[in-house]
């Protein structure tokens, strides 16, 4: 087990280094001259030279990257060009709103997905199963930003039961949560349906059915535990994605979270803030990956033993 943990940890570090190189390249190499981006096209040569000096842009690229990595390792993601504040602090300020939304959305998507997936598998190949399949495909196919807008129109304008955006107490959470959960709930139900289908074809299930247990009992008591594994992986990664901010939903609902922060950063070409939000997101996903892998190995001995053998 220790060997397994170490390997996963090593890989996580590798992935983070890779991610930091990619964000570094995107942010500093793609725009021809970051100094011009900061100072504007009309800046005089002295100002540009000064900015280059300050940012260390005269140094060779690998040195720049090393400095950048060194600062990131100390938790310093730089300062926002536009908001004149530390990127770490900006992200921390917005994290609360994003986290609440993320957790609500995740809980609701799992409830929806597990319920739909189980009912479909229980009535396999019958009308209910086919109906649920079409419903879940419909949910997957809805553009998230459009769903959010339509929910605002119906819930906020016609019914007048929900605020038209912003984060103001529990009621304001409902529409954005629905917006996020409907699509991923549909997706989870597909995943669970498929994995339940696979598990239900295995020998130990046939044994259980042969003993005379009902299909329902077998599914709940025997099949679910195994069938939920792929869903756990997916949900773990999705939660990390949600926690790092959902640009579209936060934009539609004027939600004061990290997604909107990233959106503003991109529009202002605020490079430290762009890199900060991308790196933060990658960091969360790597951690989630790691946790999911370990959880998986703990839950499923086949993986743990397979890796050792």
């Amino acid at each position, binding site marked *: 087990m220790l060997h397994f943990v170490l390997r996963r940890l090593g*890989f996580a570090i*590798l*992935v983070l280094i*890779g*991610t930091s190189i*990619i*964000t570094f390249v*995107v*942010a500093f190499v*793609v*725009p021809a001259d970051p100094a011009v981006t900061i100072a504007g096209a009309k800046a005089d040569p002295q100002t540009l030279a000064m900015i280059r000096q300050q940012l260390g842009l005269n140094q060779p690229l690998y040195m720049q990257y090393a400095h950048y990595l060194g600062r990131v390792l100390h938790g310093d993601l730089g300062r926002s060009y536009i908001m004149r504040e530390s990127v770490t602090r900006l992200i921390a300020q917005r994290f609360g709103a994003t986290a609440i939304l993320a957790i609500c959305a995740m809980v609701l998507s799992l409830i929806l997905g597990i319920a739909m997936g189980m009912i479909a598998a229980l009535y396999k190949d019958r009308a209910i199963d086919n109906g649920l*399949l*079409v419903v879940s*495909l*419909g949910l*997957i*196919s*809805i*553009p*998230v*930003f*459009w*769903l959010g*807008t*339509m929910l*605002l*129109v119906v819930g906020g*304008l016609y019914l007048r039961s929900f605020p038209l955006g912003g984060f103001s107490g529990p009621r304001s959470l409902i529409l954005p949560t629905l917006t996020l959960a409907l699509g991923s709930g549909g997706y989870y139900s*597909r995943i669970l349906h*498929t994995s339940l*289908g696979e598990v239900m074809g295995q020998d130990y299930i046939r044994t259980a059915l042969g003993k005379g247990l009902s299909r329902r009992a077998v599914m709940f008591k025997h099949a679910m535990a195994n069938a939920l594994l792929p869903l756990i992986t997916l949900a773990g990664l999705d939660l990390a*994605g949600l926690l*790092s*901010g959902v*640009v*579209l939903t936060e*934009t539609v609902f004027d939600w004061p979270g990290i997604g909107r922060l*990233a*959106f503003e950063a*991109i*529009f202002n*070409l605020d490079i430290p803030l*762009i890199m900060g*939000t*991308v790196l933060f*997101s*990658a960091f969360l*996903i*790597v951690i989630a*990956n790691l946790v999911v892998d370990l959880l998986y190995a703990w839950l499923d001995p086949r993986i743990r033993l397979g890796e050792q053998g």
Partner: protein
Amino acid sequence: MKRRLGAMEIVGLAMILTLIVVAVAAPLLAPYDPTRAVAPTYGEPGPPSRAFPLGTDELGRDVLSRIIYGARISLAVGVAGMLVTMTIGVAIGLLAGFFRGTVDVVLMRFTDVMLTLPGLLLAMALVAVLSPSLISILIVIGLVSWTQVARVVRAEALSVSQRDFMVAACSLGASSTRLILRHLLPNVLPLIVVMAALSTSGTLLLDAALSFLGLGVPPPTPSWGRMIEEAELYFRIAPWLAAFPGLAILYAVLGFNLFGYGYLRRQGR
């Protein structure tokens, strides 16, 4: 393919075909010029009426005509983005699955790193840095969406490579290029077609999202995503402006999803 198509695939194909017909025949089908002010209500959006079944926008342009013409740009971006995505994904997946060993490890670790990056954020940042144009959007869509394709194709290539006919061809002295192109690729092809359908739906959604955020194909090209973005300002007084283009996106994405998932379901995946 010997087996008949399932009901879902037929419905999906029919939906895709009608879309193509609408896109090709747009000038014949659209009642008005999509870029001209045709309604007398110039200055504010007009609700659906007999003359304008889906209403008119704030510039007096006919929403129905704009949606019909929008099918052209949305489908074109969807299919072109899919081609970029599939080219990268299939190439990496086939190479990793065929050569295995070090090639596989390196390519798949790279894929894992790319999977870690937040796709939409990265796409937004790249488009913003490169400034939005058709080409930059296509490249960016391809760059952020190939990973899933590569993984699926790799898994399939891995299992096909170990089948007897591959071993036989290899021991007859066929070169790697020949093995991949003549023996491996045709056997992975059905799966590639399905992934192409699913990746088109993904591309359509991603392009719509970028357009909605103001990073789409520049105006006056009426893409569906951009129509929703423009409608956002008026959603309190004219919700139909956003509602109908959204339904069009839903229809297109659902068509490709029905086809792709229908096939996967028939294969028991």
